[in-house]
């Protein structure tokens, strides 16, 4: 038997240059035992450090171990089951995509650029996690492991190059499970590939019956660096429970000796050059500092104190101030919420009057979300800081009505709840009619139950049934009656038509569109004269009045920028208006003395604006 501490003859080692390029191969980088709940495993392959972590959905992430911000190791960060947070500045990176979802230093204007860590493939097989620089195909197939049941032995690091380790493994000895205490096993070896070898140990367990028992172990060698490896050993059968500890110790002891032999052999060789992993350059777009976000009008900072599911696809958010007390609002008001992905969205407050300790909003996950509701549902979490505008009130509630009808469709219930909570303590008569497709879609149960009988839900009605119901409850307009409607476009159209037909005057019908779905035609060009500043500006095709005013240095407020909310309104002194918004009532359009500068345009050549 070869003395395992004999000097290794360097000429018998496999010449590394004849091996397959290791960067194209799959290598084991961890065992499944290395990825307990919320742990981040620090590993290394071919000179590249990696951070390996298992998310709550069981996805295994293998990422380059450096944050793109200033190169701090991600392995010292925290794993909360869905995101990895960098320890230095709290940047958060999402499970699976490794995309950055939150930059705490800039809650108002986290750039909408994609900052994404470098990821590597990860496959679980034989109780090990496999990865690679740029691996081709799949992790190696070892029939003995596929036919049996893998049992992970103690994996050991070795300060020796992988080929030196394999050289020692070819001479490795251990006993089969059935006769651990003997020393008589016969070994046979099968090369699996350049980095793995299978060894079968066979021993006579009974001289009378000539029975032999075998155990097979597969030894995968992970090339950590040019002078360091990890031996990842896996048995092909799971020993009986009572034997397991003994088997593990036997192999650990045997491998321990092999490690010493390999390190001794490696010490005889000239030290190899360390492997140097290439770190990709940052893209040109990300290497440039982003511009400061001007004109964003989001002066308030709030923290998400609570996030909860209030109905199917609808999430409630409770936002508390980070600094000064929150400004007051009126029922019907909405906030601009600046999302960490750079988008801005409007949400109505559901708060009752005087309740300014926090702002509460509801967000519906839109199936065709352009990223706004998606971000709030999936990325924003409790504790995050968001930048928001002060409450804007473009949908004010009259509190001098003898009867108020509140009509809510779907997520349009949010401003209605605020209105209802304002009317109730004043003893003003009101009814809130809440239309929804199914019971599961009814949100904010806690507020509705406080409002009691004043709320009627209408669930699962077809469009015709909805129309009939609307006609019924809008029947009988009386003096000082008001109706407020908020919901999807078609429902709003129907309700407005029915109200008009039932004799409700224009001034008594109030509506708020969340979206403007009409196609905006910005092909016209015209002049605008600013009466107070004595300035003439040209508005070309493709640009809105709002943009032209801002380009000229005039600070203009805005919110939805699609003609729904009414924030960007400007008075008009002269000129015919091409109204393309959904905010103004017909009577307001006919009066022709105000314009939504984000989408509306001049019908003729010129408009004179009173600014």
């Amino acid at each position, binding site marked *: 038997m070869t003395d395992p501490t004999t000097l290794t003859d360097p000429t018998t080692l496999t010449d590394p240059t004849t091996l397959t390029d290791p960067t194209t191969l799959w290598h084991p980088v*961890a065992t499944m035992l*290395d990825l*307990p709940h*919320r*742990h981040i495993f*620090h*590993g290394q392959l071919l000179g590249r450090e990696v951070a390996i972590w298992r998310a709550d959905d069981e996805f295994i992430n293998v990422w380059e171990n450096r944050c793109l911000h200033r190169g701090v190791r991600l392995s010292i960060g*925290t794993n909360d089951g869905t995101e990895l947070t960098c320890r230095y500045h709290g940047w958060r990176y999402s499970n699976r995509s490794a995309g950055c979802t939150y930059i705490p230093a800039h809650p108002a204007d986290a750039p909408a650029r994609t900052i994404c860590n470098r990821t590597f493939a990860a496959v679980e097989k034989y109780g090990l996690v496999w990865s690679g620089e740029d691996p081709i195909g799949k992790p190696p197939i070892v029939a003995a492991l596929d036919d049996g049941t893998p049992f992970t032995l103690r994996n050991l690091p070795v300060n020796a190059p992988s080929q030196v380790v394999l050289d020692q493994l070819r001479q490795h000895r251990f006993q089969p499970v059935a006769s651990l205490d003997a020393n008589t096993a016969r070994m046979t070896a099968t090369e699996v590939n350049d980095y793995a070898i299978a060894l079968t140990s066979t021993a006579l367990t009974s001289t009378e019956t000539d029975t032999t028992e075998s155990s097979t172990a597969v030894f995968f060698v992970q090339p950590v660096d040019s002078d360091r490896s990890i031996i990842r050993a896996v048995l092909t059968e799971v020993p009986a429970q009572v034997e*397991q500890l003994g088997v593990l110790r036997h192999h*650990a002891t045997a491998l321990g000796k092999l490690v010493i032999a390999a390190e001794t052999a490696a010490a005889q060789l000239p030290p190899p050059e360390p492997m140097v992993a290439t770190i990709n350059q940052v893209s040109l777009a990300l290497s440039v500092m982003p511009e400061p976000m001007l004109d964003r009008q989001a002066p308030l900072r709030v923290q998400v104190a609570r996030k909860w599911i209030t109905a199917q696809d609808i999430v409630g958010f409770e936002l508390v101030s980070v600094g000064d007390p929150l400004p007051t609002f009126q029922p019907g008001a909405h906030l601009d919420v600046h999302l960490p992905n750079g988008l801005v969205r409007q949400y109505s407050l559901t708060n009752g009057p005087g309740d300014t300790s926090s702002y509460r909003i509801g967000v519906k996950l839109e199936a065709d979300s352009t990223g706004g509701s998606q971000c709030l549902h999936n990325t924003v979490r409790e504790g995050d800081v968001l930048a928001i505008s002060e409450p804007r009130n473009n949908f004010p509630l009259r509190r001098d009505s003898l009867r108020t009808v509140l009509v809510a469709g779907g997520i349009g219930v949010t401003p209605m709840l605020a209105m209802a909570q304002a009317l109730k303590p004043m003893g003003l008569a009101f009814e809130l009619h809440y239309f929804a497709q199914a019971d599961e879609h009814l949100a904010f149960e806690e507020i509705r139950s406080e409002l009691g009988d004043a709320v009627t839900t209408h669930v699962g009605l077809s469009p015709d049934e909805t129309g009939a119901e609307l006609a019924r409850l809008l029947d009988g307009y009386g003096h000082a009656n008001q109706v407020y409607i908020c919901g999807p476009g078609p429902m709003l159209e129907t309700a407005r038509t029915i109200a008009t037909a039932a004799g409700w005057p224009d001034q008594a019908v109030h509506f708020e569109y969340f979206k403007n779905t009409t196609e905006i035609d910005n092909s016209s060009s015209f002049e605008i004269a600013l009466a107070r500043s004595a300035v003439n500006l040209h508005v070309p095709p493709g640009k809105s009045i709002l943009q032209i005013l801002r380009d000229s240095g005039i600070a203009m407020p805005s919110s939805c920028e699609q003609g729904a909310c009414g924030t960007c309104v400007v008075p008009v002194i002269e000129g015919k208006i091409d109204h393309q918004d959904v905010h103004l009532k017909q009577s307001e359009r006919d009066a022709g003395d105000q314009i939504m500068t984000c989408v509306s345009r001049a019908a003729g050549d010129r408009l004179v604006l009173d600014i």
Partner: protein
Amino acid sequence: MIKLYDYELSANCYKQRLMMSLLDVPYESVPIDFFPGLEHKTDEFKKINPLGHIPVINDDGYVLWDAHAILVYLAAKYDPSGHWYPIRDPALLGETASWLLFAEGTTNTASAARLYVNLSYDFDIEACRAGAHRLFRMLDEHLWFREREGLNWVCSASHPTIADIAIFPDVVLSEEGGVSRLDYPALRRWTDRVKALPGFSIMPGIFPMGTS
């Protein structure tokens, strides 16, 4: 109230702060200008501990020094469960004592390496680092086998003992001394478990676990 003569960056002082935090025992930290002031070597301080080192505690007149001795006292006196220093279980107590000696080893290797790098102590740095790796290899194997038996701590009980506390700071701060823990995954999992103990507190150089 217990007075702890204390230095913020000392691993041995931190062992006491951590123990008292885990035991929920209030104490007063008396900052000693250990570095660069060398206050522990002054005649004034030597009235408290003639050997001129910290940590030292004064518990209502009872004065004790030596990091591991103080852990024994704190656990014996203030732990009603009897888990941390298990005097009612001789076998476990023996294990605890044995691993306290192991902690002397980690102090003299890993912590010494840290003092060499941080505060320019005059030690044989190569010997310290080699010694630390030797001990970490042993401890990693030991903890790996504990995990296979469903146990999480250095001694063979289902709860930690002061042995875990005595060893933990030397291990978790080892990288400051240039001793990497890349080769010791079981050791790293164990440090996560210590950090998750109720009442755990940090010192500069240690990061807390996440809150979720």
